[in-house]
């Protein structure tokens, strides 16, 4: 039996909040376990609102921070055993990140192509300028760009959607088997958003890369994911096949999340009136309403 691609075993991350009087413990991630098998590539989505611990989880999977307890196995290797520079580099060749804000992902004072060349130089056999150029161009072609559009450009000369695609191209250069994308479309313009999400499908189907897609947006999650987990305050509340979970959520919180998603079909004027929690509460207890109207 082969080891799964990624296996998280009861992962917990505690942060200590230092106060003047005593320290408070805060569980950013609480006893999370899941695994991504390596039979076929998939888009694995982690859904959560702010404070759900989804970004902390992503950073642990990327080996940027260490869990307080629990272990992460990537292709059977415990991430805690990665200590030397060489081991770190071998891990990065397999697992690459995409970050939330494409405008922040590249140094504004440096040219964007630099990161493509650096990645090619450090993780592939390419060494001569021509080889590096070819490696960067090949990766950019996969995301619908070419080196000519990127060469010598500074980040502010490209749009958010272009930058995010360059970031994905950079992550593809080492030929990773997994990409961790933390809220990759939340800062990208609406007309460009689908190009990124569609790209994830292409990466999975054509390049056989598994993707951990972290988001708060249920609609794109439904569109692109194979499996999902829903997190709340560090805990996994529901997991399973994306379509099944999102079409028929079982956990109370998942249902709440789904009911809060606005439908893009216009429902005419004032559809939300009487929909707020306060007014529903007021309707449910007319007694309180009369007190209100008296004063």
């Amino acid at each position, binding site marked *: 039996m082969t080891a799964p691609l990624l296996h998280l075993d009861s992962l917990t991350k505690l942060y200590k909040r230092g106060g003047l009087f005593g320290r408070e413990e805060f569980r950013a991630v609480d006893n999370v376990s899941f695994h991504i098998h390596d039979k076929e590539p998939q888009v694995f989505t982690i859904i959560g609102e702010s404070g759900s611990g989804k970004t902390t989880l992503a950073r642990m999977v990327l080996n940027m921070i260490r869990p307080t307890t629990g272990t992460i196995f990537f292709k059977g290797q415990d991430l805690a055993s990665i200590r030397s520079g060489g081991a770190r580099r071998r891990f990065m060749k397999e697992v690459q990140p995409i970050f939330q804000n494409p405008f922040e992902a590249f140094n504004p004072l440096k040219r964007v192509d630099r990161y493509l060349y650096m990645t090619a130089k450090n993780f592939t056999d390419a060494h001569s300028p021509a080889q590096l150029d070819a490696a960067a161009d090949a990766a950019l072609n996969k995301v619908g760009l070419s080196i000519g559009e990127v060469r010598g450009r500074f980040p502010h000369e490209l749009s958010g959607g272009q930058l995010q695609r360059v970031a994905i191209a950079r992550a593809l250069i080492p030929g990773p088997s997994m990409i961790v994308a933390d809220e990759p479309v939340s800062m990208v*313009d*609406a007309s460009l958003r689908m190009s990124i999400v569609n790209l994830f499908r292409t990466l999975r189907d054509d390049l056989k890369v598994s993707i951990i897609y972290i988001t708060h947006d249920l*609609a794109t999650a*439904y569109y692109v994911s194979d499996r999902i987990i829903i997190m709340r305050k560090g805990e996994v509340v529901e997991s399973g096949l994306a379509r099944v979970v999102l079409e028929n959520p079982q956990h109370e919180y998942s249902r709440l*999340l789904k009911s809060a998603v606005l*439908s893009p079909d*216009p*429902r005419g004027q004032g559809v*939300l009136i009487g929909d707020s929690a*306060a007014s529903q509460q007021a309707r449910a207890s007319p007694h309180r309403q009369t007190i209100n109207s008296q004063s």
Partner: protein
Amino acid sequence: MAQIPASSVQNNSHVLETHDLRAYYRMRYFGIDREVRAVDGVSMHVRKNEVYGVAGESSCGKTTFIKAIAAAIRPPLEIVAGHVNYSFIKGDLYAMPAAERSAIRWRHLSYILQGSMNVLNPVRRIHKTFEDFAFRHMNLGRAEFDQAVKHHLERLRLPAEILRAYPHELSGGMRQRVCIALATLCKPEFIIADEPTTALDVVVQKDVLAMIRETQSEFGSSMIFVTHDLTVHANVTDRLGIMYAGRLVEEGRTADVFANPMHPYTAHLIASLPKIGDTQSRNALSGSPPNLADAPKGCRFHPRCPLAMEICRHENPALTTLAEDHRVACFAASTKVQPANDEGSGEAKTLEMAR
């Protein structure tokens, strides 16, 4: 330029009218001049008791448009041409003395902004912030003012205890609700909401949106609601204007715009919205929004437009009424639909002359 009469709005069922509004950023850094045409000839109106949505991507000029209608213009931003008229002021907003302009703020014209932390003073309790903003405008005694604030919170079904809290003690959603209460305290005729729910979680977002809509209909205020999120527009606004690269490209009743988008840009935006329960593959638009310091000639959408024709490269299409209460700025759409009347042609002339 068309002559606009200097007495308030032209149509008395309108609360806000703008005529060919142009607001540019003019910068000078070490001898290099730069002009960013962030709002370039926007003519629109907001009717009484309606929520008018403004949609657009980043740097399409929607924030600048809001600054221009809220008289929050600071260098390097300048109003280059055009008029802003409100029903509650005489004449043009920019013809008013600055003191009068600041007197209408909060009393007649108020705001709900994205970062509620920037509105609420972090070191003052909420009731102090209410005093700072609204006491001057209400012309009430101290006790009466406190009573009015309490009554207002009750109407909005907010607990009175929040008045004694500091902003950091409240959740993001509650802070935004407090900002809505603050913005509606003086029962203003006009409210500007700039991405009021963008920073909020999904669950909270829906509730805050519902509260905005409830409050607006209860007080009969008119509202401009700006957000990039079309699903929010679908649920909140009565009429919708789509901005692209500093110009209004389509405007109509929200339901009409969603059911029958006529501008190719709008059509693409609406078609690309993902929905739960629908995995049908959605195409993305190639290219990216133009840099407004160096915008393309003619129709600013033509480099990305699947319907682009020769004329689009040279001439800027005017907003033309193509269906009842539905205006579109697109040559391709205009040729498909016979213009319902000739209302748009006057505007077309002014736009051409300014070019």
